[in-house]
């Protein structure tokens, strides 16, 4: 409790705005849901939006806070998602409560992704800049290819595993958790919007706490000036590893949320494109800016769906809009114009 108080005591506008946004959105959407006023289109998008928010926040930790470019975050999502599906599918045989299953699956997914994150960070974080980006890119591809070739099933006799060629013959009543490129099918859907929002809040608490901690400041110091940071005795590799593993774990947790929201999950979903898409959310939201990341993720995930009325021109318009948004948010004139409007309002407010 004392910690929570401290968290909010810090006069951090960005932090307050982020929590406010999530809670206000949640209350508003729940109200619409309860009164039955939300279109099914939006209802179906609630969990995916939550999930992408968490991944984008996690990626911002790496890209924005530690200043390293990662192009493989979809890989961590993939690990989390498939671990989640397996754990949830297995536990549902013993545990009745879906919420408990879901919570355990999330923890397992996060741990699994963290382990992979740690393993990959050993060679990766000795590299810098472009080299690191390339290695993470390769990592994403490796994960995709691996999962594409895994066959894992479960029946009374226990787990069955085969690689590349499917040699599994299950007894009746058995279930295939992953069948190669077909992925996971027939998953019981246990994700829901409330769980997604709680996970976003936990993610925000973890990230802000980390950023305000001794370790977080060390990472940012290393990002801003590596030599100066080293000169005061900071262990840069250690702190960067910590960020990378934390980010991987969060992305894994988001993956579980994602995986348990669809009855079908294909490995090819988590490809390079998905990694880049999440990076786009982060860049648009602002490096190190968590509030901006939340906003940009919500807008950019929703945008293609809101444009559905345009039929065939949908993806074309989406691409054009994306370019316009990127230019507009980075154009000094436009930003000054908005700042001007804002300042005038502020001045008027003070004048009263």
């Amino acid at each position, binding site marked *: 409790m004392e910690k929570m108080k401290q968290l909010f005591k810090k006069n951090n506008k960005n932090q307050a705005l982020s929590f406010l946004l999530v809670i206000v*959105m949640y209350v508003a959407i729940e109200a619409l849901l309860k009164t039955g006023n939300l279109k099914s*289109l939006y209802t*179906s*998008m609630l969990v995916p939006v939550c999930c992408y928010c968490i991944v984008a926040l996690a990626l911002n930790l790496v890209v924005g806070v530690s200043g390293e470019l990662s192009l493989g975050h979809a890989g961590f999502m993939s690990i989390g998602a498939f671990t989640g599906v397996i754990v949830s599918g297995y536990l549902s045989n013993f545990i009745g409560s879906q919420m408990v299953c879901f919570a355990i699956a999330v923890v397992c997914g996060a741990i699994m992704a963290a382990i992979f994150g740690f393993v990959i960070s050993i060679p990766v974080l000795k590299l810098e800049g472009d080299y690191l980006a390339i290695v993470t890119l390769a990592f994403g591809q490796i994960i995709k290819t691996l999962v594409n*070739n895994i066959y894992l099933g479960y029946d009374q006799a226990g787990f069955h595993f085969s690689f590349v060629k499917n040699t599994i013959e299950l007894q009746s009543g058995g279930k295939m958790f992953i069948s190669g490129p077909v992925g996971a099918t027939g998953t019981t859907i246990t994700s829901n919007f409330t769980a997604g929002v709680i996970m976003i809040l936990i993610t925000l608490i973890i990230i802000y706490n980390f950023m305000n901690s001794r370790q977080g400041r060390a990472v940012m110091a290393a990002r801003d000036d590596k030599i100066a940071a080293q000169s005061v005795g900071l262990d840069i590799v250690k702190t960067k590893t910590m960020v990378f593993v934390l980010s991987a774990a969060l992305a894994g947790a988001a993956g579980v949320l994602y995986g348990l929201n669809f009855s079908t999950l*294909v490995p090819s979903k988590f490809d390079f494109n998905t990694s880049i898409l999440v990076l786009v959310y982060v860049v648009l939201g602002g490096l190190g800016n968590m509030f901006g990341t939340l906003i940009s993720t919500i807008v950019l995930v929703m945008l293609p769906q809101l444009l*559905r009325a345009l039929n065939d021109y949908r993806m074309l318009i989406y691409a054009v809009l994306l370019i316009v948004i990127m230019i507009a948010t980075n154009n000094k004139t436009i930003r000054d114009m908005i700042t001007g409007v804002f300042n005038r309002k502020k001045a008027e407010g003070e004048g009263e």
Partner: protein
Amino acid sequence: MKKLLSGLMSCAMALTMVACGGGSSSSSESATTFKIGGSGPLTGDYAIYGKAVENGAKIAVDEINAEGKIQIEFKMEDDQGDPEQSPICYANLQDWGMQIGLSTVTSGAGAAVSQKYKDDQTFAITPSASNTSVVFSNDDCTESYGYVFQMCFTDPNQGIASADYLKDHEDIGTKVAVLYQSDENYSTSIYQKFKGEAEKVGLEVVYEDSFTKDSKDFTGQLKKAKESGADVVYLPMYYTTAALILNQSNAMGYAPSFVGVDGMDGILTLEGFDTKLAEGVFLLVPFSADSDNETTKNFVAKYEEQFGQTPNQFAADAYDCIYAIAQAIEAGQITPDMANSEIAEKLIAQFTSMTFNGSTGTNVTWAKTGEVSKTPLAVVIKDGVYVGYEGE
């Protein structure tokens, strides 16, 4: 002040959400028309299939509406063949007031919505999602969703039918080489069933190899196939890859009999592909555009007139789906003012008992599981068109 702009945008979005939410979809004016909705890849890698389905369905809808017995309104959403997008498309169609579903064009996307059709007790028939996971909820294929029917063969049936066909027609060749795409579920599942059936019936498979998405060079695999003495190369894959294989095989002077599956359909309309290379390729497809069948002739003529191309089997499957639904609606005396669950119940009763004659087969029947039963048609490509193959 990026934040402010973002804030404004989010407010605007929240407003649109509320505004849209207000106009819920209790459309009373549609009491005389059936609303049929489907989703498929209208953009992206598999757009050619989605477009074909949309066009085929539109022709059928126009014809039925012109006839006047029942009125249908048809809407197609773009899911890009992505299991993440298809539930969103489904939700969007629900908002629109969909009463009967055309489900999805691709399998992965289809499996992601089958449970939703079941939960909402809405009837759906898919023109081309051929994986078993679209109709069955478990891996043993014992529990079906019951609300989702298929117009195309399931993948296993294609693999089995291919192996049986090759065994029965030794004039095509006796030593088989198989190339398949290991990271694609359509290709892998056909291959697995083909292999199993080949072992069972004693078909000699002398060489098998796989490749992954975006592979462009197959000369290595073809060379090995040639060395192994294969005189038949079985290609369970989509036509874009098959076109490359045919091209490279021709360049290296290797000329076995090539045998494809329904994903090979479309190769003749592929831009930049020399159709001479496909000369003599065998395909097991449910539909051949040059068939003598009256329904097919009429459909092909209309399709060519409206869209300027010869329809492929995806278009034909969609055309048949709409007609099958119409037939069931008439026979079951279903009216558009019924609830979705009632429509579904009556349609299922009709589908499991009726016999349907369409452009993709005659005497087509459906099992309670939703699987279709019809005979595949063997065709061979001659002078750039499909010709029925009867064996020699």
